[in-house]
């Protein structure tokens, strides 16, 4: 087990190198010159001389591969550069913003679980009943509504019409509710559907029929015999769709002015703030790999065959 974890963490190295390399070159291809933007931002006329000197100041005058090597060298020493925009060290910017993102991620995951588990279970247990139809309709709705749209609707209803919840910023639980709901609802829709399908498939297995033949109650069969088996594919899917989740966070943070790293990255894109973007991508890749590892570990915990190891005896 320890070996497995160490191995997976070692895989981080090529992933981080690859990801940073790709962003570095793609950013360079993107239109817009950060030096010119900076000059304009400081209120000066972007004359060729001013832009050139700004470029030199930002270190953009070196060729691309040199810049990349320099960036890696500094990154290895914990220095992710300085934001063009705020002048703060990138590492500090990220560290300041990360807790908010983590908070939102946890809150929306909690919301997702609280919604998806009962919905999936009830939907499968009362398969084809009105409860099932209702829950599937809600899930279809949730899965087909884009996050930004749902976010705006929620803002309109709870913020503008009812005036119940703040629609911007952070700080209190109340601030957390709307963005967490926006994100959690879309996710819950996906996973409720997945859990339902997985449960129904498991409920068709021989060992469920055998449990029924022993007279166990249907509710017990669903919860104790089917649920754990049905969770396995759901966990796998969760690991695979992590990227979508991170993407969704960027959108939701922007809509609700949530001071997380997602919104930071959007600001950085508009400002062509290369160091911040580089840092963001690096941190997200790290998060992605670590969470994926956690997902895989929970899969192992759920599946005794992987946990105990050892082959099939005959």
């Amino acid at each position, binding site marked *: 087990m320890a070996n497995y974890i160490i191995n997976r963490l070692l895989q981080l190295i090529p992933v981080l190198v690859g990801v940073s390399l790709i962003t570095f070159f793609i950013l360079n291809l993107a239109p817009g010159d950060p030096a010119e933007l900076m000059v304009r931002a400081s209120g000066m006329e972007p004359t060729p001389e001013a832009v050139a000197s700004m470029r030199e100041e930002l270190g953009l005058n070196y060729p691309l591969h040199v810049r990349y090597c320099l960036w890696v060298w500094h990154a290895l020493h914990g220095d992710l550069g300085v934001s063009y925009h705020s002048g703060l060290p990138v590492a500090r910017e990220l560290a300041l913003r990360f807790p908010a993102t983590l908070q939102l991620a946890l809150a929306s995951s909690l919301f997702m679980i609280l919604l998806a588990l009962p919905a999936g279970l009830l939907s499968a247990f009362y398969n084809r009943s009105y409860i099932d139809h209702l829950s599937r309709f809600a899930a279809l709705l949730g899965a087909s509504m884009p996050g930004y749209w749902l976010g705006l609707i929620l803002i309109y209803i709870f913020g503008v019409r009812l005036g119940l919840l703040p629609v911007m910023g952070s700080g209190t639980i109340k601030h957390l509710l709307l963005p967490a709901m926006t994100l959690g609802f879309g996710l819950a829709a996906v996973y409720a559907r997945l859990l339902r399908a997985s449960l129904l498939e498991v409920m068709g297995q021989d060992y469920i029929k*055998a449990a029924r033949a022993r007279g166990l109650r249907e509710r017990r069969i669903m919860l104790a015999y089917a649920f*754990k088996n049905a969770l396995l594919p759901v966990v796998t899917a969760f690991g695979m769709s992590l990227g979508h989740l991170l993407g969704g966070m960027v959108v939701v943070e922007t809509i609700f002015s949530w001071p997380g790293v997602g919104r930071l990255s959007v600001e950085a894109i508009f400002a062509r703030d290369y160091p911040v973007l580089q840092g963001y991508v690096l941190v997200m890749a790290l998060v992605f790999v670590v969470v994926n590892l956690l997902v895989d570990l929970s899969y192992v915990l759920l599946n005794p065959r992987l946990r105990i190891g050892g082959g099939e005896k005959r």
Partner: protein
Amino acid sequence: MRVENIKIDFPGKNSTVRAVNGVSFAIKAGETLGIIGESGSGKSVTALALLGLLEKPGRVLEGRIIYKGRDVLLLSRKEKQRLRGREMAMVFQDPLTSLNPVLTVGRQLTDVLRRHLELNRHQTRERALRLLQSVGLGNHEGIMKSFPFQLSGGMRQRVMLALALGANPSLLIADEPTTALDVTVQAQIIRELHRLQQEKGMAMLVITHNWGVVAELADRVGVMYNGRLVEYGSIVDIFNHPAHPYTHLILSSVPVLGKGRKGIINIHSPVSRVTLNGCSFAPRCMLKGKHCLKAPLSAEISPGHFVACHLAGIDSAIAVERRRELA
């Protein structure tokens, strides 16, 4: 347990499959009925119907399943649940897929006991251990903690047996209990079944492809073909005086060693699903004649020996004639 003329349909989109078409039999306490027949003849479907466990589109069209004076088909869901495990239990064909892969043997075993017996925690555990011992599983402390995939095929089938016997059922249904096992283990499981039945005086319904299993365990035998019991009688009737051409066919496909006839039926021909008016075995019957255009009724050719063939019993003179012609 008495089964009276049950018919089971699986309605499909375009056509309906009649999986069981008028099957009747009876099993008395302490007695074993063996049902033998080729794949798809409706054996498992019949067994599941006894427990009220037919899967969705399938339904019992008509007939009665009388258990201890009550018709199982008329019981409520709750009553049926209480019957399963406590009164009737079932051992399935494949012990690997029939055990929950993510729960330990102990967990699955104590679940049944807790469901049906009023025992405290300690007593439940004691009983679980005794059960494992009674089905011949030696190191039972270890087995309680293991997951199905850690056990061998034979051990798994023993666990299935322990699960089925947990609440002392009076009828044990074993659907091909040995098919997934290798030959030596098959023999052990058969012996175990025999011993347990003797000890507990249960009634038993054994479903199989295998004449050996029938010979070892059954007091009476039903031969099933295409949803019908084409022949039904005591083990002596079936082995020594088989009357239906299909019984002849499957008995003769068995290698004969010394005086015992044992082996496995290997004839799996596509069963015609066209609902013929006549005898459904006719297309494969070497004795068929024009009388076979009419479906034969089951006739009692000697006490307790029923055959559904025009050539059986009173008509057996014709049968002899036709056999001579064909020979």
